[in-house]
Structure formats: structure tokens, C-alpha cells
């Protein structure tokens, strides 16, 4: 019988250091499957963020570089401009992309850099123990919002896809999640489309992925999956925001 479920060549055999129930591992696998299917592994260069995915180079089986916190879009620009035929993607969390790196992502998008961005929105800083992120939901308790996020002092949840939608340099913006099979399949479609756009020289594509973070959310893994459906999507509705 033919093997139905095999490990993508684009993933190394290393053990993940992610927590139980974390969404990162699923997204890594989806990216690896897409890169295998598009046959671009040998010309792909990934850019790892600072955050939970900082060890991405130990999981992906292709060239990967580190970048300072928030700077992957600038690093991607520096690579892509001198190697325009390589496939360059950044993998960034919400602290990296939406807080300290908000300038770099906006301007890379505005220059219409022909790169792919995979943006993990788990509504907190996971790596450092679960602090307030720009994406933290109103009322959500974190390490630094013990009473829950208060609009008056902490501001509003930042909607990255909607923000970038106003920028003419973007060609594809989509939001999905990895909390059930249907959404995982949808996420894979988005990721594949975002890479295909780059292959076709179409420009800047970003895929936002709502990703479960059980320890920081103080929830069991199964409850985290449910929380995305019941709470998170109300602030961050799923779907394609732009597809030019």
C-alpha cells in the first residue's frame, strides 16, 4: 500500500521545542509541504524571527538566517534584491511583526517587495512568558495585563491584514487559523498562494494565521482550539482580505 502521510523533505528530523498544543508545528509542516509541492526547496531562503520560532533553522531543511527582533522584512529585502530568483519568506510572530517590527513590515509592503510573509497571531508574546501583544484581545489576561487588556491604557487589538490592506504595494492578504482540519487546509491554500505569487513575481503577500498558544492562554489545548472559534475570530475574522 502506498504511504499516505510522509514527512516533507523541507522539514528536518529534529524534535520541536514547542509547547503541547502549540500551533507553530502545524504551520511549519504546512510551509514545508508547500515548498516541496512547488519544488522550490533548493532555492528558498527563510528568515527566522525572534520569538518562539527563533529556532526555525533547526526545523526547516533549507537555508535559513536569523534576524534581529522585528527586522525580518528588512533582511528579506536585502536578500531578495540581490538574489531576485530565490524564494524568500519571513516567519514572524505578533510581537516581532506587529510591535517592534511594525515599521519594517509596513515599508516592505509599501515597496511591494516580492516576498512572502507568514504571520503568526497568537495574541501574546509566547517566548517570554505571555505578555501583552498588539494583537491581544480586549479583556484578555496576560502576564502584563493581569486585569485583562484595557482599551484606555493598552489600546486596541491591532488588525494587521486590515492595516496592510490600505497599502497599494500588497497583492495578497489573508487570515486563517490552524484550530481544525478545515481551517488547516485553508491555511495551506493561503500559504501556497502566497508562495506562488512570489514565483510569479507578483509582489508582497502576507498570510496571517491565528495560532493556539495553550500555556499563555491558560487553557487546555482542546479549549484553546475552541477559544479561536468562539472568541478570537470575532476580532480577527477569517478570509481573504485582498487578492490582486
Amino acid at each position, binding site marked *: 500500500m502506498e504511504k499516505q502521510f510522509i514527512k516533507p523533505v523541507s522539514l528536518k528530523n529534529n524534535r520541536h521545542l514547542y509547547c503541547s498544543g502549540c500551533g507553530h508545528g502545524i504551520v511549519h509542516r504546512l510551509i514545508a509541504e508547500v515548498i516541496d509541492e512547488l519544488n522550490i526547496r533548493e532555492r528558498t531562503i527563510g528568515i527566522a524571527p525572534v520569538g518562539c520560532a527563533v529556532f526555525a533553522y533547526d526545523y526547516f531543511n*533549507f*537555508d535559513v538566517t536569523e534576524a*534581529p527582533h522585528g527586522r525580518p522584512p*528588512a*533582511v528579506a529585502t*536585502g536578500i531578495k534584491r540581490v538574489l531576485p530568483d530565490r524564494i524568500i519568506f519571513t516567519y514572524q510572530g505578533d510581537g516581532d511583526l506587529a510591535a517592534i517590527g511594525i515599521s519594517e513590515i509596513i515599508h516592505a509592503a509599501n515597496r511591494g517587495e516580492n516576498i512572502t510573509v507568514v504571520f503568526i497571531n497568537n495574541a501574546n508574546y509566547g517566548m517570554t512568558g505571555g505578555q501583552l501583544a498588539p494583537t491581544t484581545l480586549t479583556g484578555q489576561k496576560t502576564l502584563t495585563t493581569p486585569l485583562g487588556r484595557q482599551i484606555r491604557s493598552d489600546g486596541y487589538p491591532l488588525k494587521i491584514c486590515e492595516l496592510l490592506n490600505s497599502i497599494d504595494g500588497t497583492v495578497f492578504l489573508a487570515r486563517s487559523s490552524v484550530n481544525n482540519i478545515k481551517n488547516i487546509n485553508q491555511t495551506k491554500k493561503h500559504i501556497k498562494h502566497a508562495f506562488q505569487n512570489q514565483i510569479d513575481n507578483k509582489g508582497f503577500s502576507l498570510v496571517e494565521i491565528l495560532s493556539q498558544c495553550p500555556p499563555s492562554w491558560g487553557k487546555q489545548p482542546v479549549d484553546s482550539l475552541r477559544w479561536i472559534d468562539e472568541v478570537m475570530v470575532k476580532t480577527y475574522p477569517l478570509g481573504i482580505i485582498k487578492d490582486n
Partner: protein
Amino acid sequence: MKNRVLMQGNTAICESAIMSGCIAYYGYPITPQNEISAHMSKRMRELNRVFIQAESEIAAINMVLGTSVTGTRVMTSSSSPGISLKQEGISYLCGCELPAVIVNIMRGGPGLGNISGSQGDYFQSTKGGGHGDYKMIVMSPDSVQEMYDLTADTFELADKYRNPVMLLADGYLGQIMEPVIVDKPVMKNSFEKNWVLDGCKNRAPRKIRSLLMNDGELEQFNWHLNDKYNKIRQTEVRYESVNIEDAEIVIVAFGIVARICRDVILKLRAKGIKIGMIRPVTLWPFPEKIIGEIAGKLKYISVIEMNLGQMVEDVRLAVNGKCPVEFFGKPGGAIFTVDEIISKIK
């Protein structure tokens, strides 16, 4: 035949970088180095190379990091406040062992300071302005000719040691125009780069990173860096000596100040005063050996800087008590006259 061209200091840096095979330039507007990005924006496009005016100094240095990851020669330039913003990136370049050329056309500080030439960034450049144990080669020109010549050397040294190299000049040198002999051969990017990321075709995947979390791993890496820095200390020290053979007084000065001191020496020598000068060309590695060797024979050393006293600390370490070390400084973007310096030499 020697090709003599009238050039501004900032332009000389650009033309030398282009001749040295610099394929990408990233910058952000700041006075007094705007001629560099203006010139590069024209020339790099003409040559079908990469020019980006970045959204910030931070983005510019990280674009440099990205291009360097591919093994491509790359440069950024700025002036003092902008260089402060690049310090995190410089630390990462050192931690990832990535070559890059960073130009600092210094202006007065601290804070926004002014736009006049200054030497206030000696500490920041030579002692490591960013976090962690690292060193960066720092080269200090004193003429437009040297801005041209040393820029080419910064690219070679950066590749040779897989380390960022800084060209440290000031607003005066950046702005003046002088004839330059442009007879340096076109540089070949000849260093073997078996570490670059360009896609893993026909080889195992590579990673570039400075995060070393395993037990003892970071310590070992720092010792490796230390070996490299020691090799640079042994191999790459450069200085110019002026009339030191019979000197009883020696000036130590770098950059534009050393240039003024040439006239000081001429005038004082005409009066029969036995005075000479050591001009460090590499500020790191510092020419401590020659200073230590001559110190015992001198009445004193006079360190002259356009700051409140920075290089003087390295001179005192090199002299190690063998003769008195005097300091004469001028901070805040002010420049010396020859007579002012002469009045301080007893």
C-alpha cells in the same frame, strides 16, 4: 598613467565602494553625509546595482545584514545619531560573522548635537557601541585620497575576517574636495565564501545565526571570536609616523585633526622644536606597540582630539606611565586652528 580626479570626500567613498564591487547600498538621510546616498542613488542605478533609501537607519543596517548573508558586498552610511541606531545590527553582524562596510561621517553630539564635523564617536566605534563582546575594525582617513583608498580596504578586510568594518571620518572630511588619484585596481571579490545562503542546491542546508543556547556553546564561540580579534590585532594595525626619529614631543591625532597637526609640526620644527606625530589609521586595532616603544624616549605625548578625550585613554594604556600624556580637546563640532594647538605645546 595616473588618473587624477577632483572629488568630494563623500563622493570618493562612493566611487571606491563601486570599484570595490559593492553591489548594494542602503541608507537613510542624515547630514553631513547626504552626498553619499545621493551619489549612490544615481550611480548604483546606472550600474544596475541595488540602491534603497530605507525607512529607517535600523531597516538600512538590517538590509545590509540580509545582503551580507548572501555573500554580496554591501555598504551603508550615516552620521553619528544614525550610527547609534545601527548598533544592534552591528552587534548581530559580529555575532553572525557577516562582512559589511559601515561609514560614519561624524557630527557633533550628544543627542541631535549639530551638523559640524566631530570625533565624538571614537568610543562608540572602537569599544563596541552595541551589546556583547565584539570588535569591529575601524579605519580613519585624513584626506579625500585616503577616503578613496581606505574604503576599498574596508571591503577587503570585511571579507577577509567575516566582520563588519567601519570607515570613521567626520563632516569636514566628508565635505571637502581634493584631487584624488584613482589608480587602485578594481577589486575582485576573491574570498572563498563557503558559508553564504543562496539556496541549498547541491549542498546541505546552511543556517546563519548568533543564538547559541547549548551549554558552553556561546562561550566557545566568544573564544573563537577572540582568536579572530587577536589575529586582527597582530596583522592589521596601520599608522603613519611623521618625524618621530629624533622627536622629543609626539602628537597623537587621527583624521582631520592629524591633518591640522601636520602644519603644527612644520611650524614648530622651523622654530627648532623636535616634534613628531603618530597618526593611527586603524583606530581598532590601535597602534599601541609603536606608541609604547617610543614613549620612553619622549618628554611627553600630546593627544589632540575633537572631543572631550576618548583616544587619549588608549594612548595612556599604550604608554603605561613611561612618559606624561597631555590632552587637548575640542568638543561639540568645533575645529582647531594651527595656532591654537601650537599654544598648547610647551
